[in-house]
């Protein structure tokens, strides 16, 4: 039996915040009471890829148990209720009243406490990062706390009997490596990014979606871990406006100002 654990986050859909609320937002950000709660994009991909791994193990004749683990999801029943129907065996919500925004160490610590309290997982998946406050650091701290090697920005996982082939993005392209379990993987721009959807019949046939709510004692960081260095990623983008009158003008602009410069 293989044990797979997916860590995910339920967040507010910032695309739905009213412009007036952005304008009036104070230090705590805009009013989010009315906006839709959604799965973080990368976390949704992590869940789907965990299900694909489970499917692949089943095809190999190997049983797999999938736990979906989240911390303080808030209003999320409409998301969690279908997990059992798509193949998640156990959904666990760690509950806390503490504000864990911008606290990746403490968040990872709480997740690690839960995971280490049960049978050790073979594969742990997590989304690359999830705004707001998406530092991308939680999976990295979690890997350290669990004592697992970490593969970042995975785009696909293909289990075999004795290892798992992981494709992941690196600066120079896509790297394929074969990982022995156990390991942790962050899911980035994966080949499959949407979580599968059950039919109403499948949802009715599935076991009742017993969502476990577990009180989490958030202590401080487990300590002993500090980033060696921190730098701000350069995310600046340049923008050029073509003021041409027609498609021909725009094409000429594109060729002269973008393509030629890139080639030369």
């Amino acid at each position, binding site marked *: 039996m293989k044990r797979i654990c997916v860590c995910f986050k339920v967040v507010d*859909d910032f695309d*739905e915040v*009213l*412009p*007036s609320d952005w304008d009036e937002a104070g230090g705590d950000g805009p*009013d989010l*009471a*009315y*906006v*839709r*709660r*959604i799965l973080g994009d990368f976390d949704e991909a992590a869940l*789907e890829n965990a299900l694909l791994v489970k499917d692949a193990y089943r095809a190999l004749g190997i049983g797999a148990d999938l736990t979906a683990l989240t911390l303080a999801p808030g*209003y999320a029943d*409409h998301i969690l209720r279908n997990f059992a129907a798509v193949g998640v065996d156990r959904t666990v919500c760690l509950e806390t009243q503490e504000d864990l925004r911008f606290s990746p160490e403490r968040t990872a610590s709480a997740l690690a406490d839960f995971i280490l309290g049960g049978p050790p997982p073979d594969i742990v998946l997590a989304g690359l990062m999830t705004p707001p406050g998406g530092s991308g650091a939680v999976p990295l701290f979690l890997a350290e706390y669990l004592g697992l090697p970490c593969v970042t920005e995975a785009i696909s996982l293909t289990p075999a009997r004795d290892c798992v082939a992981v494709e992941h993005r690196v600066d120079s392209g896509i790297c394929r490596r074969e990982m022995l379990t156990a390991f942790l993987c962050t899911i980035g721009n994966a080949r*499959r*990014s*949407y*979580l*599968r*959807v*059950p*039919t*109403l*019949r499948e949802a*009715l046939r599935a076991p009742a979606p017993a969502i476990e709510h577990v009180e989490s004692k958030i202590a401080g960081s487990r300590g002993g871990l500090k980033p060696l260095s921190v730098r701000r990623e350069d995310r600046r983008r340049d923008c050029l406006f073509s003021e041409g009158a027609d498609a021909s003008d725009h094409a000429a602009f594109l060729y002269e100002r973008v393509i030629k410069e890139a080639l030369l």
Partner: protein
Amino acid sequence: MGLKEKTVGDLTEILGPESIISDDGAMRIADPIMVRTYAKAFGYVPEHRPLCIVKAASAEQVSKTLRYCSDNDIHVIARTGASSSEDQLLVIDDRTIFIDGSPMNRIVDIDTENMVVTAQCGTPIAALEERLNADGYTLGHAPQSLPLASMGGLVATRSTGQFSTYYGGIEDLVCGLEAVLPNGEPIAIRPVPRRAAGPDLRHIAIGSEGALVFITEVTVKIFKWYPDLMWKGGYIVENFKTGLAAVRDVMVKGYKPSVVRLYDKADVDHNYGSVKLKNEEAFMFFTVEGPGGVPEAHGAAIHQIALSYGAEHIGVKAVDHWFLTRNRICDTIGTEKEYVKFRETNVYNATLEICANWGQIGEIYDEAMRTLPEVIPELVMLGGHVSHSYMNGTNVYFVYALKMGDPASAHLAQYRFVDAVCDVVLKYSSATIVHHHGVGKMRAGRIREELGSSFTLLEMLKQSIDPGNIMNPGCLIPIG
């Protein structure tokens, strides 16, 4: 010479080469229509494609084209905005051309003394609305498809807008129109405030779905616009039925909200999401428009009615959220973003709108919600909302998602769903199978049951106006 070469050659000679598009790439995407986009996401090429697209720049060009098609038994599908929800634009044979009225996009006249605007069929109503708003007026017609919609298509499909409870549907707005008959003869119905000169001939064109005439120009009412005075109120009610009772009370007491919407929990959770509901709770909201004094007075009364049904007032944020997102679906239709989601999830989201009197609409909603999951195994979600209310009844918009199978036959799942809803609705004497999307080819198979003994009138109209059945065969009236 094949039919395509002959038709393209002849029409090029009649209209000039600049008016004809015939390359195969354009023909493959000529009918970008709702459920068919699902198949296209998988690279499926439509079985039948148009011979060519005529880009008609004037009523005269439409007339010449129709005369040619009538003489040569070429079938014609009219289009302006190039989208349709009920397979109106589906090509079902190999002798069809599109007449595309989008080049006829001129606002002919804005007459603020007589409060009408005249616009050609291809006029995008978003642009027209923006133009009117700049001068303090509004069309009062704002369908969800506003960013895509053109005047001709809205009239042809008997559209309604999200503010219809105050302004009315398109049939209440059209004062006059010009059109071309299948034999190429142009006709005009002069715009007047009211007429008692026999049956209202406007209604032969309104809702004709391209099966009777080609609409070239429309004159519609306009209204003074008071956006800053709008009253809004959002409420949570115990359940959908309680919400229906509250909405009915507002309407029958004579108040005139512009938007009345009531969502069940499944719809809110799946598509809307701005209100966190518990158990069977439902979300409803109202807006009131008009000059000073009207919104406050009607709003205050509506508020009291809502509270009398035990509603919890939740302010206006959720209403503002609806205004922010109400047309967002148009941003992704037919885009790669939508295609990727189709390919990964195999899920297609759609809607179906029906209408009935107050006395039966609740029963219909209940029966549909109970029976549809049993008969449609592909259902992934099913919810509903009310969005257009009247003195005597209201609509229900069934919102659903289907897990599709083979892309080439995926549309059959939607057809089965539509049929199953029709099976429910047609059992009720005060109900109709279609509220505002039109019949298209998707619901044409049920039009006889819908119209009952009056179907013969529709058949006679078709036979007398379009004896050769060249106008969108299979749309509105089934073949055979």
